[in-house]
Protein backbone atom coordinates (compact mmCIF):
# COMPACT_ATOMS: atom_id res chain seq x y z
CA UNK A 1 0.00 0.00 0.00
CA UNK A 2 1.44 3.31 -0.98
CA UNK A 3 1.95 5.93 1.71
CA UNK A 4 -0.17 8.44 -0.17
CA UNK A 5 -3.17 6.20 0.41
CA UNK A 6 -2.62 5.88 4.18
CA UNK A 7 -4.81 8.84 5.28
CA UNK A 8 -7.81 7.63 3.33
CA UNK A 9 -7.38 4.09 4.57
CA UNK A 10 -7.34 5.31 8.19
CA UNK A 11 -10.64 7.07 7.52
CA UNK A 12 -11.94 3.94 5.78
CA UNK A 13 -11.07 1.90 8.89
CA UNK A 14 -13.05 4.32 11.10
CA UNK A 15 -16.05 4.26 8.80
CA UNK A 16 -15.99 0.47 8.44
CA UNK A 17 -15.92 0.18 12.25
CA UNK A 18 -18.77 2.70 12.54
CA UNK A 19 -20.82 0.81 9.98
CA UNK A 20 -20.25 -2.48 11.76
CA UNK A 21 -20.82 -1.37 15.34
CA UNK A 22 -22.78 1.88 15.68
CA UNK A 23 -24.79 2.13 12.48
CA UNK A 24 -26.87 -1.05 13.08
CA UNK A 25 -28.09 0.43 16.38
CA UNK A 26 -30.19 2.90 14.44
CA UNK A 27 -31.52 0.42 11.91
CA UNK A 28 -32.36 1.67 8.42
CA UNK A 29 -32.76 5.42 8.73
CA UNK A 30 -31.16 6.96 5.66
CA UNK A 31 -33.45 8.49 3.07
CA UNK A 32 -30.98 7.85 0.27
CA UNK A 33 -29.29 5.00 -1.52
CA UNK A 34 -26.41 4.50 -0.80
CA UNK A 35 -26.81 5.40 2.88
CA UNK A 36 -24.89 8.38 4.24
CA UNK A 37 -22.13 6.28 5.80
CA UNK A 38 -21.76 4.21 2.65
CA UNK A 39 -21.67 7.40 0.57
CA UNK A 40 -18.97 8.89 2.82
CA UNK A 41 -17.01 5.64 2.64
CA UNK A 42 -17.12 5.56 -1.17
CA UNK A 43 -16.35 9.27 -1.42
CA UNK A 44 -13.24 8.90 0.73
CA UNK A 45 -12.15 5.76 -1.13
CA UNK A 46 -12.48 7.38 -4.51
CA UNK A 47 -11.85 11.08 -3.89
CA UNK A 48 -9.47 11.08 -0.91
CA UNK A 49 -9.81 12.32 2.66
CA UNK A 50 -10.42 16.05 2.21
CA UNK A 51 -12.84 15.94 -0.71
CA UNK A 52 -14.41 12.76 0.69
CA UNK A 53 -15.15 14.27 4.11
CA UNK A 54 -16.49 17.40 2.42
CA UNK A 55 -18.82 15.36 0.18
CA UNK A 56 -19.88 13.13 3.09
CA UNK A 57 -20.67 16.10 5.33
CA UNK A 58 -22.72 17.76 2.64
CA UNK A 59 -24.61 14.53 2.11
CA UNK A 60 -25.43 14.25 5.84
CA UNK A 61 -26.74 17.82 5.73
CA UNK A 62 -28.90 16.77 2.77
CA UNK A 63 -30.31 13.82 4.72
CA UNK A 64 -32.98 15.62 6.78
CA UNK A 65 -36.68 14.82 7.21
CA UNK A 66 -37.72 17.24 4.48
CA UNK A 67 -35.39 15.76 1.86
CA UNK A 68 -37.04 13.73 -0.89
CA UNK A 69 -34.40 10.97 -0.70
CA UNK A 70 -33.87 8.57 -3.59
CA UNK A 71 -30.73 7.35 -5.33
CA UNK A 72 -27.77 9.65 -4.80
CA UNK A 73 -24.37 8.30 -5.84
CA UNK A 74 -20.99 9.94 -5.28
CA UNK A 75 -19.69 12.19 -8.07
CA UNK A 76 -17.97 9.91 -10.57
CA UNK A 77 -14.19 10.09 -10.04
CA UNK A 78 -11.89 10.54 -13.01
CA UNK A 79 -10.78 6.95 -12.55
CA UNK A 80 -12.41 4.48 -10.22
CA UNK A 81 -9.94 2.88 -7.80
CA UNK A 82 -10.11 -0.77 -6.93
CA UNK A 83 -11.04 -1.56 -3.33
CA UNK A 84 -10.62 -4.71 -1.26
CA UNK A 85 -13.59 -6.59 0.16
CA UNK A 86 -13.17 -4.77 3.48
CA UNK A 87 -13.10 -1.42 1.69
CA UNK A 88 -9.41 -0.49 1.70
CA UNK A 89 -7.73 1.13 -1.28
CA UNK A 90 -4.49 -0.70 -1.94
CA UNK A 91 -3.06 0.95 -5.03
CA UNK A 92 -3.82 3.63 -7.58
CA UNK A 93 -5.19 1.10 -10.01
CA UNK A 94 -8.48 1.14 -11.77
CA UNK A 95 -11.30 -1.36 -11.74
Amino acid sequence: MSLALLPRNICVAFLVAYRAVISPLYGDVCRYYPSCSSYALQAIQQHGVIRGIWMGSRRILRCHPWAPGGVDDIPEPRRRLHTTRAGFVLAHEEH
Partner: protein
Amino acid sequence: MDIFALLMWPIKWVIEAILVGFHTVITALGGAEGSGLTWVLSIVGLVLVIRSAMIPLTVRQIVSSRKSLEIQPEIQRIQKKYKGKKDQFSREAMQRETMEAYRKAGTNPFASCLPLLIQMPIFLGLVQVLTDANNRKAGVGLLTEELATLFSQSTLFGVVPLHQTMQGGFASGDVWVIITAIVLTAIMCATQFYTQLQIMTKNQTPAMKESPMYKQQRILLYIIPVFLLVSAWLFPLGTMFYWLVSNIYTLVQQLIIINKMPTPGSDAALAREARMARKRQRMGLPPVEGDEAAAETEVEIKTQRQQPKGKGTKSKREGRA
Protein backbone atom coordinates in the same frame (compact mmCIF):
# COMPACT_ATOMS: atom_id res chain seq x y z
CA MET B 1 -8.29 20.39 17.62
CA ASP B 2 -8.95 24.14 17.56
CA ILE B 3 -11.47 23.75 14.77
CA PHE B 4 -13.16 21.10 16.89
CA ALA B 5 -13.34 23.46 19.89
CA LEU B 6 -14.75 26.17 17.64
CA LEU B 7 -17.46 23.81 16.36
CA MET B 8 -18.36 22.75 19.89
CA TRP B 9 -18.52 26.31 21.23
CA PRO B 10 -22.11 27.15 20.22
CA ILE B 11 -23.38 23.75 21.32
CA LYS B 12 -21.72 24.15 24.72
CA TRP B 13 -23.06 27.70 25.03
CA VAL B 14 -26.65 26.56 24.49
CA ILE B 15 -26.26 23.61 26.88
CA GLU B 16 -24.90 25.90 29.57
CA ALA B 17 -27.66 28.44 29.03
CA ILE B 18 -30.36 25.78 29.40
CA LEU B 19 -28.69 24.19 32.45
CA VAL B 20 -28.18 27.52 34.21
CA GLY B 21 -31.70 28.61 33.27
CA PHE B 22 -33.25 25.53 34.88
CA HIS B 23 -30.92 25.86 37.87
CA THR B 24 -32.09 29.44 38.42
CA VAL B 25 -35.76 28.50 38.08
CA ILE B 26 -35.50 25.49 40.41
CA THR B 27 -33.56 27.54 42.98
CA ALA B 28 -36.24 30.24 42.78
CA LEU B 29 -38.87 27.56 43.39
CA GLY B 30 -37.13 26.60 46.62
CA GLY B 31 -34.46 24.08 45.58
CA ALA B 32 -31.16 24.34 47.44
CA GLU B 33 -28.51 26.00 45.28
CA GLY B 34 -25.81 23.46 45.97
CA SER B 35 -28.07 20.41 46.15
CA GLY B 36 -27.40 17.52 43.79
CA LEU B 37 -31.13 17.16 43.25
CA THR B 38 -31.36 20.69 41.85
CA TRP B 39 -28.62 19.88 39.36
CA VAL B 40 -30.16 16.53 38.43
CA LEU B 41 -33.49 18.26 37.80
CA SER B 42 -31.66 20.84 35.66
CA ILE B 43 -30.20 17.98 33.62
CA VAL B 44 -33.69 16.46 33.28
CA GLY B 45 -34.86 19.88 32.06
CA LEU B 46 -32.04 19.92 29.52
CA VAL B 47 -33.14 16.54 28.14
CA LEU B 48 -36.75 17.68 27.92
CA VAL B 49 -35.83 20.87 26.07
CA ILE B 50 -33.49 19.16 23.60
CA ARG B 51 -35.78 16.23 22.88
CA SER B 52 -38.88 18.43 22.60
CA ALA B 53 -37.05 20.61 20.11
CA MET B 54 -36.70 17.47 17.99
CA ILE B 55 -40.39 16.50 18.09
CA PRO B 56 -41.17 18.30 14.78
CA LEU B 57 -38.51 16.11 13.12
CA THR B 58 -40.06 12.95 14.54
CA VAL B 59 -43.59 13.96 13.59
CA ARG B 60 -42.50 14.90 10.09
CA GLN B 61 -40.91 11.47 9.70
CA ILE B 62 -44.01 9.66 10.93
CA VAL B 63 -46.30 11.62 8.63
CA SER B 64 -44.17 10.77 5.62
CA SER B 65 -43.93 7.12 6.64
CA ARG B 66 -47.73 6.98 6.80
CA LYS B 67 -47.88 8.53 3.36
CA SER B 68 -45.58 5.81 2.04
CA LEU B 69 -48.41 3.35 2.73
CA GLU B 70 -49.92 4.56 -0.52
CA ILE B 71 -47.12 3.16 -2.64
CA GLN B 72 -46.96 -0.11 -0.71
CA PRO B 73 -48.18 -2.10 -3.77
CA GLU B 74 -45.27 -0.72 -5.82
CA ILE B 75 -42.79 -1.63 -3.04
CA GLN B 76 -44.27 -5.12 -2.80
CA ARG B 77 -43.92 -5.52 -6.57
CA ILE B 78 -40.22 -4.69 -6.28
CA GLN B 79 -39.81 -7.06 -3.35
CA LYS B 80 -41.51 -9.85 -5.28
CA LYS B 81 -39.22 -9.20 -8.25
CA TYR B 82 -36.13 -9.79 -6.10
CA LYS B 83 -37.59 -12.47 -3.87
CA GLY B 84 -35.06 -15.16 -2.94
CA LYS B 85 -32.18 -13.30 -4.56
CA LYS B 86 -29.78 -12.75 -1.74
CA ASP B 87 -26.59 -11.85 -3.61
CA GLN B 88 -25.09 -8.42 -3.13
CA PHE B 89 -25.95 -7.09 -6.59
CA SER B 90 -29.61 -8.04 -6.46
CA ARG B 91 -29.97 -6.52 -3.01
CA GLU B 92 -28.30 -3.34 -4.21
CA ALA B 93 -30.53 -3.13 -7.27
CA MET B 94 -33.58 -3.74 -5.12
CA GLN B 95 -32.65 -0.98 -2.68
CA ARG B 96 -32.00 1.39 -5.56
CA GLU B 97 -35.39 0.70 -7.08
CA THR B 98 -37.14 0.98 -3.72
CA MET B 99 -35.56 4.33 -2.91
CA GLU B 100 -36.31 5.65 -6.37
CA ALA B 101 -39.94 4.56 -6.01
CA TYR B 102 -40.21 6.45 -2.72
CA ARG B 103 -38.67 9.55 -4.25
CA LYS B 104 -41.03 9.45 -7.21
CA ALA B 105 -44.01 9.14 -4.89
CA GLY B 106 -42.76 12.12 -2.92
CA THR B 107 -42.69 10.15 0.31
CA ASN B 108 -40.05 8.37 2.36
CA PRO B 109 -40.52 6.14 5.39
CA PHE B 110 -36.99 6.67 6.70
CA ALA B 111 -36.06 9.00 9.52
CA SER B 112 -32.98 10.52 7.83
CA CYS B 113 -29.50 10.73 9.34
CA LEU B 114 -29.14 14.32 10.49
CA PRO B 115 -31.34 14.19 13.63
CA LEU B 116 -29.48 11.11 14.87
CA LEU B 117 -26.03 12.48 14.23
CA ILE B 118 -26.91 15.82 15.83
CA GLN B 119 -27.35 14.07 19.17
CA MET B 120 -23.72 12.95 19.26
CA PRO B 121 -22.14 16.44 19.48
CA ILE B 122 -24.84 17.44 21.99
CA PHE B 123 -23.89 14.57 24.28
CA LEU B 124 -20.21 15.30 23.77
CA GLY B 125 -20.86 18.98 24.56
CA LEU B 126 -22.61 18.03 27.79
CA VAL B 127 -19.70 15.78 28.81
CA GLN B 128 -17.30 18.67 28.20
CA VAL B 129 -19.48 21.18 30.07
CA LEU B 130 -19.84 18.89 33.08
CA THR B 131 -16.16 17.95 33.08
CA ASP B 132 -15.17 21.63 33.09
CA ALA B 133 -17.67 22.32 35.86
CA ASN B 134 -16.23 19.43 37.88
CA ASN B 135 -12.81 21.03 37.59
CA ARG B 136 -14.34 24.30 38.80
CA LYS B 137 -13.56 25.99 35.51
CA ALA B 138 -15.91 28.60 34.10
CA GLY B 139 -17.71 27.48 30.95
CA VAL B 140 -17.92 29.26 27.59
CA GLY B 141 -21.07 31.19 28.50
CA LEU B 142 -23.44 31.50 31.43
CA LEU B 143 -21.87 28.81 33.59
CA THR B 144 -19.66 30.98 35.81
CA GLU B 145 -16.83 29.74 37.99
CA GLU B 146 -19.10 30.23 40.99
CA LEU B 147 -21.78 27.94 39.51
CA ALA B 148 -19.13 25.44 38.43
CA THR B 149 -17.85 25.27 42.00
CA LEU B 150 -21.42 24.78 43.23
CA PHE B 151 -21.85 21.90 40.78
CA SER B 152 -18.57 20.22 41.66
CA GLN B 153 -19.45 20.35 45.36
CA SER B 154 -23.04 19.21 44.95
CA THR B 155 -24.06 15.83 46.26
CA LEU B 156 -27.23 13.84 45.71
CA PHE B 157 -29.00 13.22 49.06
CA GLY B 158 -25.86 14.49 50.75
CA VAL B 159 -23.83 11.35 49.98
CA VAL B 160 -23.36 10.94 46.20
CA PRO B 161 -21.18 13.58 44.48
CA LEU B 162 -22.44 14.16 40.92
CA HIS B 163 -18.97 14.56 39.47
CA GLN B 164 -17.95 11.10 40.65
CA THR B 165 -17.64 8.19 38.21
CA MET B 166 -18.19 4.50 38.86
CA GLN B 167 -14.46 4.06 38.47
CA GLY B 168 -13.84 6.76 41.11
CA GLY B 169 -16.41 5.15 43.38
CA PHE B 170 -14.59 1.85 43.29
CA ALA B 171 -11.21 3.55 43.71
CA SER B 172 -12.29 5.42 46.83
CA GLY B 173 -14.50 2.60 48.11
CA ASP B 174 -17.54 4.90 48.26
CA VAL B 175 -20.44 2.47 48.60
CA TRP B 176 -23.16 5.02 47.79
CA VAL B 177 -21.48 6.09 44.56
CA ILE B 178 -21.07 2.45 43.54
CA ILE B 179 -24.70 1.64 44.31
CA THR B 180 -26.02 4.73 42.49
CA ALA B 181 -23.83 4.06 39.46
CA ILE B 182 -24.87 0.41 39.29
CA VAL B 183 -28.57 1.25 39.63
CA LEU B 184 -28.31 3.93 36.94
CA THR B 185 -26.45 1.59 34.59
CA ALA B 186 -28.98 -1.19 35.16
CA ILE B 187 -31.94 1.08 34.36
CA MET B 188 -30.08 2.46 31.34
CA CYS B 189 -29.34 -1.02 29.98
CA ALA B 190 -32.91 -2.14 30.60
CA THR B 191 -34.49 0.87 28.83
CA GLN B 192 -32.09 0.70 25.88
CA PHE B 193 -32.59 -3.04 25.50
CA TYR B 194 -36.36 -2.76 25.72
CA THR B 195 -36.58 0.12 23.20
CA GLN B 196 -34.37 -1.72 20.73
CA LEU B 197 -36.31 -4.94 21.19
CA GLN B 198 -39.60 -3.13 20.61
CA ILE B 199 -38.34 -1.56 17.38
CA MET B 200 -36.89 -4.81 16.11
CA THR B 201 -39.70 -7.19 16.93
CA LYS B 202 -42.69 -4.95 16.32
CA ASN B 203 -41.88 -2.01 14.11
CA GLN B 204 -40.05 -3.64 11.21
CA THR B 205 -41.49 -5.08 8.04
CA PRO B 206 -40.74 -8.68 7.00
CA ALA B 207 -38.51 -7.25 4.23
CA MET B 208 -36.45 -5.35 6.79
CA LYS B 209 -36.15 -8.50 8.86
CA GLU B 210 -34.65 -10.32 5.88
CA SER B 211 -31.82 -7.82 5.44
CA PRO B 212 -28.32 -8.60 6.73
CA MET B 213 -28.57 -5.41 8.78
CA TYR B 214 -31.23 -7.08 10.91
CA LYS B 215 -28.95 -9.94 11.94
CA GLN B 216 -26.29 -7.43 12.93
CA GLN B 217 -28.90 -5.58 14.96
CA ARG B 218 -29.83 -8.76 16.76
CA ILE B 219 -26.24 -9.42 17.78
CA LEU B 220 -25.77 -5.84 18.88
CA LEU B 221 -28.85 -6.03 21.05
CA TYR B 222 -26.76 -8.10 23.42
CA ILE B 223 -23.54 -6.13 23.02
CA ILE B 224 -25.06 -2.71 23.82
CA PRO B 225 -25.30 -3.35 27.58
CA VAL B 226 -21.57 -4.09 27.62
CA PHE B 227 -20.89 -0.78 25.85
CA LEU B 228 -23.09 1.04 28.34
CA LEU B 229 -21.26 -0.57 31.24
CA VAL B 230 -17.91 0.62 29.91
CA SER B 231 -19.21 4.18 29.38
CA ALA B 232 -20.85 4.18 32.80
CA TRP B 233 -17.48 3.21 34.25
CA LEU B 234 -15.88 6.33 32.74
CA PHE B 235 -18.56 9.08 32.67
CA PRO B 236 -19.55 11.18 35.70
CA LEU B 237 -22.91 10.42 37.32
CA GLY B 238 -24.27 13.78 36.12
CA THR B 239 -23.77 12.69 32.50
CA MET B 240 -25.34 9.32 33.21
CA PHE B 241 -28.48 11.07 34.42
CA TYR B 242 -28.71 12.83 31.06
CA TRP B 243 -28.34 9.54 29.22
CA LEU B 244 -30.84 7.79 31.45
CA VAL B 245 -33.56 10.42 31.11
CA SER B 246 -32.93 10.58 27.38
CA ASN B 247 -33.35 6.78 27.16
CA ILE B 248 -36.62 6.91 29.05
CA TYR B 249 -37.83 9.70 26.76
CA THR B 250 -36.98 7.58 23.70
CA LEU B 251 -38.72 4.56 25.20
CA VAL B 252 -41.98 6.43 25.85
CA GLN B 253 -41.85 8.11 22.44
CA GLN B 254 -41.22 4.77 20.74
CA LEU B 255 -44.12 3.12 22.55
CA ILE B 256 -46.42 5.92 21.41
CA ILE B 257 -45.16 5.60 17.83
CA ILE B 258 -45.55 1.81 17.80
CA ASN B 259 -49.08 2.11 19.13
CA LYS B 260 -50.31 5.08 17.13
CA MET B 261 -48.20 5.30 13.99
CA PRO B 262 -46.38 2.02 13.29
CA THR B 263 -44.23 1.34 10.24
CA PRO B 264 -46.56 0.24 7.41
CA GLY B 265 -46.35 -3.51 6.91
CA SER B 266 -44.84 -4.27 10.32
CA ASP B 267 -46.33 -6.48 13.04
CA ALA B 268 -47.20 -3.33 14.98
CA ALA B 269 -49.15 -2.01 11.99
CA LEU B 270 -51.08 -5.28 11.66
CA ALA B 271 -51.81 -5.22 15.38
CA ARG B 272 -53.03 -1.65 15.08
CA GLU B 273 -55.30 -2.50 12.15
CA ALA B 274 -56.76 -5.40 14.13
CA ARG B 275 -57.32 -3.06 17.09
CA MET B 276 -59.05 -0.50 14.91
CA ALA B 277 -61.25 -3.19 13.30
CA ARG B 278 -62.33 -4.48 16.73
CA LYS B 279 -63.09 -0.94 17.82
CA ARG B 280 -65.27 -0.34 14.75
CA GLN B 281 -67.08 -3.60 15.41
CA ARG B 282 -67.77 -2.61 19.01
CA MET B 283 -69.19 0.68 17.83
CA GLY B 284 -71.41 -1.17 15.38
CA LEU B 285 -69.76 0.26 12.26
CA PRO B 286 -69.06 -1.88 9.20
CA PRO B 287 -65.35 -2.75 8.62
CA VAL B 288 -63.34 -0.26 6.55
CA GLU B 289 -62.83 -2.57 3.56
CA GLY B 290 -66.53 -3.50 3.56
CA ASP B 291 -67.39 0.17 3.41
CA GLU B 292 -65.59 0.63 0.12
CA ALA B 293 -67.04 -2.57 -1.34
CA ALA B 294 -70.53 -1.45 -0.38
CA ALA B 295 -69.95 1.91 -2.05
CA GLU B 296 -68.90 0.15 -5.25
CA THR B 297 -71.96 -2.10 -5.42
CA GLU B 298 -74.16 0.90 -4.78
CA VAL B 299 -72.73 2.60 -7.87
CA GLU B 300 -73.45 -0.53 -9.90
CA ILE B 301 -77.06 -0.67 -8.74
CA LYS B 302 -77.65 2.93 -9.69
CA THR B 303 -77.07 2.09 -13.36
CA GLN B 304 -80.27 0.06 -13.22
CA ARG B 305 -83.69 1.52 -12.87
CA GLN B 306 -85.02 1.25 -9.34
CA GLN B 307 -87.84 -1.28 -9.43
CA PRO B 308 -91.00 -0.15 -7.66
CA LYS B 309 -91.85 -2.32 -4.72
CA GLY B 310 -95.34 -3.72 -4.52
CA LYS B 311 -96.97 -2.54 -1.34
CA GLY B 312 -99.85 -4.91 -1.55
CA THR B 313 -103.30 -4.01 -0.43
CA LYS B 314 -103.99 -2.25 2.81
CA SER B 315 -105.73 -5.24 4.31
CA LYS B 316 -102.81 -7.53 3.41
CA ARG B 317 -100.34 -5.28 5.19
CA GLU B 318 -102.51 -4.99 8.25
CA GLY B 319 -103.25 -8.65 8.25
CA ARG B 320 -99.57 -9.46 8.33
CA ALA B 321 -99.01 -7.16 11.28
